[in-house]
């Protein structure tokens, strides 16, 4: 009997060169939002809504290469953090009570793509058929949520996601755990992940509860600047025709961006935010009648992450201004046929709360722009 047949057995994982994040032209708001979430995963993820073909998925998929590796418990299905015993999965907990220190190794931060049409059993995980059949063992086969633990879960066309999957995601992202009760399997495992979603608003609305889960909301438009558009085509062409040399050319930019993120991740917990500034942030949210406190929290976290990215240890008014719109855009109460964009309402409120400083307003990500 053949163990593996060429076509029919599990196909080899298909490796494809990824277009580098550092080579993405324009779309500064989106890039900034993604980087902030990398620096501080507690921000709670990003949703990118906008025109088709503007580089949303390209940016998210390029993210993986920017992430510094993390320590994982060796052999753990969920990649538990050896330093955080409180967040261990059942297996690691049992093992750690037996031995003092769990062996660990370095591994990449997972960036898991939730493909179109994924079914619940694969998302949550279920009974491992193979082991059940061959060994007669009732074993759990982890799903995508397990794979995404401590990493990113990317959902393209997030506004078209099936309702039942939305429920699953909401449960998991609220509790940080995935609870599976199916097919005679009863298990719960850690599932902390940063949600990243993208979609085109013309294809439908996002369920409010799900929208609320995203820390930052960025809008993305077709670039109308001729130079940038030419550059996009030129870079893409070079990448397609000679990926190696293109990647070589961009290597130093890529590396400096990576280091900047590593550095920011290191210092970010030490970034201070002034109490007076916190008050002003609260004022801003009150002015805009944002429900709950998620608005303030997100702005504070995002502005700290931004300060860290810029290599500062204290948050400035400008940091707050740069992250306010993306932190609040989806939290305003809105009349569905309201013509005024939420963005401009936030701008107005910002101008009212932070009147003194001249508004810079730009969303430049510093040295992110690369000259080929």
């Amino acid at each position, binding site marked *: *009997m*053949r163990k593996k*047949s*060429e*076509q*029919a*057995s*599990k*196909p080899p*994982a*298909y490796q*494809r060169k990824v277009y580098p994040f550092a080579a993405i032209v324009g779309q500064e708001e989106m890039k900034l939002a993604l980087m902030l979430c990398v620096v501080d995963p507690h921000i709670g993820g990003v949703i990118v809504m906008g025109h*088709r*073909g503007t*580089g949303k*998925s390209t940016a998210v998929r390029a993210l993986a290469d920017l992430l510094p590796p993390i320590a994982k418990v060796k052999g753990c299905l969920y990649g538990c953090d050896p330093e955080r015993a409180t967040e261990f999965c059942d297996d690691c907990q049992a093992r750690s009570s037996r031995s003092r220190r769990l062996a660990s190794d370095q591994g990449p931060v997972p960036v898991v*793509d*939730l*493909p*179109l*049409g*994924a*079914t619940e*059993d*694969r998302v949550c995980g*279920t*009974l491992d*058929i*193979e082991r*059940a*059949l*061959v060994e*007669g063992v*009732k074993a759990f086969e982890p*799903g*995508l949520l397990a794979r995404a633990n401590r990493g990113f879960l990317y959902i*393209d066309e997030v506004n078209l996601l*099936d309702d*039942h999957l939305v429920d699953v995601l909401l449960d998991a992202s609220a509790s940080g755990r995935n609870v599976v009760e199916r097919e005679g399997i009863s298990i719960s495992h850690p599932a902390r992940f940063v949600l990243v979603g993208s979609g*085109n*608003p*013309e*294809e*439908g*609305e*996002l*369920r409010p509860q799900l929208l609320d889960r995203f820390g930052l909301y960025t809008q993305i438009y077709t*670039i*109308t600047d*001729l130079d940038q*558009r*030419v550059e*996009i*085509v*030129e870079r*893409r*062409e070079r990448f397609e*025709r000679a990926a190696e040399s293109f990647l070589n050319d961009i290597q130093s930019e890529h590396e400096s961006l990576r280091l900047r993120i590593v550095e920011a991740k290191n210092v970010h917990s030490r970034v201070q935010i002034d109490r007076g500034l916190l008050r002003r942030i609260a004022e801003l949210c009150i002015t805009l009648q944002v429900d709950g406190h998620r608005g303030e929290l997100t702005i504070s976290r995002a502005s700290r992450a931004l300060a860290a990215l810029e290599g500062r240890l204290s948050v400035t008014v400008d940091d707050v201004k740069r992250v306010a719109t993306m932190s609040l855009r989806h939290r305003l109460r809105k009349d*569905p*046929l309201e013509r005024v964009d939420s963005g401009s309402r936030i701008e107005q409120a910002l101008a009212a709360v932070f009147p003194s400083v001249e508004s810079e307003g730009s969303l430049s990500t510093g040295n992110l722009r690369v000259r080929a």
Partner: protein
Amino acid sequence: MSSTPASDRTSSIPVRNQGGLKSRPSAYPFAAIVGMQAVKRALMLLAVDAGLQGTLIASNAGADTTSLARSFAAMLAKVDSTISNHENHSVQARPAFPVIDLPLNVTVDRLLGGINLERTIETGTRQYTAGLLAEANGGLLVVAGVNLLDASLVDHVAAALDAGVVRVEREGASATFQSRFRLVGDYNPAEGELSPHLRERVGMIVDSAQEDSAEEIAEAVSRALRFEQDPRGFIEEFAVETGLLQSDIAGARSRLGEIKVTSGDIRRIAEAAISLGVEGNRADLFAVKAARANAALAARDSLCDEDIITAIQLVLLPRATRFPSPEEREEDADETAAPASEEDVRDNHAGSGGREAEDSNEQTDRPIEELIIEAMDAVAPQEALKLPRGKPVRGDSGRRSPVPDHARGRYVSSDSRRNKNARLAIDTTLRAAAPHQAARRDRVVAVRSAGAKDKKIRITPDDLRYKRFKRKSGILFIFAVDASGSMALNRMAQAKGALARLLQQAYLHRDKVALISFRHSTAETILAPTRSVELAKRIVDALPTGGATPVAAALVEALNLARLARLQGLPRAMLLLFTDGRANVGLQKAGSQKVGSLAESRKERPQGRESISDELKRIGRVLETESIAPVVVDTRPRFVSTGEGRALAELIGGRYLYLPRADATAIYNAVASVAEEARRQG
């Protein structure tokens, strides 16, 4: 379960493909096709550069673009199986160039691939089968009627085009298959719009509509007849032309890498894209590729205006959201030299590939507007230049039937009851069988006292589980607003308000809304069925109002919308008719081709009040048979109401909601409760 050796089984895919190729030796030769220059050009470009991803062909009911696509497939298969054999050395036992026909009733698991039940059971380890998207890897995927493909399936095709792989995470399967293919599809725009995802991800979209001369038509017919009588002879007859085309393609491919595309060229293309309001950056890339492929076909080593015009025509114009204004066009058109005429196109097309690039087309750097206008002139004006949104689509009742209704929707659970059309749920069947394997094996071993080596899974009928589907089918709410008379503005505001609130809930129920306005003698779809608040926001606030009240025309428009929506998987519709009920224009006067399906039942007769009410009754019956529930919403203040609204409701067999002086919220509440009722019944 059969115990046939596995070896034959797994090869079922290649065999099928090869069979497909062999059974089609007598495809009509591509080289013999008369006319349809733009379509042929778009396909040739695709043949030259696979990076162009695909060509979609808009065609009317009459045009046989499907067999055109097959001719192309057959030709390309020949080119590619001779060219790329040595490139694809890794592929074994598969044809170098698979051509996969995607049937509209394909199921998701067949499309994407999944667990191979037989092999899994035989071997005891999980085995996978590739789906059609993976089978098409390295080849061509042909879809006839691509706009009728179920929305979720189209999205998978679009995703595979984009990523070059198919990722399956469903029903116990977790796999990634390579899936790089070129797509050729045709669609009849009257039957519904193209999926925006697909539209975005193919290089070229062309309209097959054309004005062929009588001469050309005669030639086409005579060739078709000759082909019918003697396919082999006919193919033989065109062998030389076919050979030339193939060597054109091969030559162009080898030249492709050497063609210089300057920043200036890219700039001009990007400029054209911006001035046409093309969304996103993919189109720019496609346009550059198309221009380059065009130059390669013409054996040039750099781009000239003609290449850019072709790229604008085939790639950018179909995605335009705005066009140069007519005046601009007129003015410039006078100065413009002869448009990229058919001669040009045919010239490089049939030419032996060595056409020297020395003629007048060489001069470059004409202003991009001129090129856009030239490209627009080269395109048949009807479909391809239609702005994608804003205009209603209307259709006949569907010449092709989409996926059968059983077993559609989402596979939610499974159980052991078998019903009609039941499909086996592989994952749960295996799971049900799993716990008993040890015991069953022991039993067999005991009986046979043979070696317990075999890993075969023993499945008994009790283990079988069948899929249960749940289809969240929403309702299409069609708001038909009477824009005649003095209260029209009021009604429009009320309808818009109710519509907006309905949309906020639409996500939950998978509903869609549409808005029709009717006055004078016509009804017009202002908002095609949508779920998007963004689009609804764009409804114009101030519509022209006043004039007569063509209720019947509005009903027919609604009927058309509902039929189209049904083709796209939205089976139920509710019609909300905002009017005072004074229907005073019949269809005859509203006279348009829209009434097609009702035409038989309409006899010539005087258009008095009497016949209008007959007409309404008749349409009412049609609405009923197509399960479209009409509701007449009457918001006139009590003292003016004359009961005409109620009378209208009776005529068309609908419900009557009398909501005097109601605001949008009150109307929404009333509508929502009627909808809730409908949902419960459905």
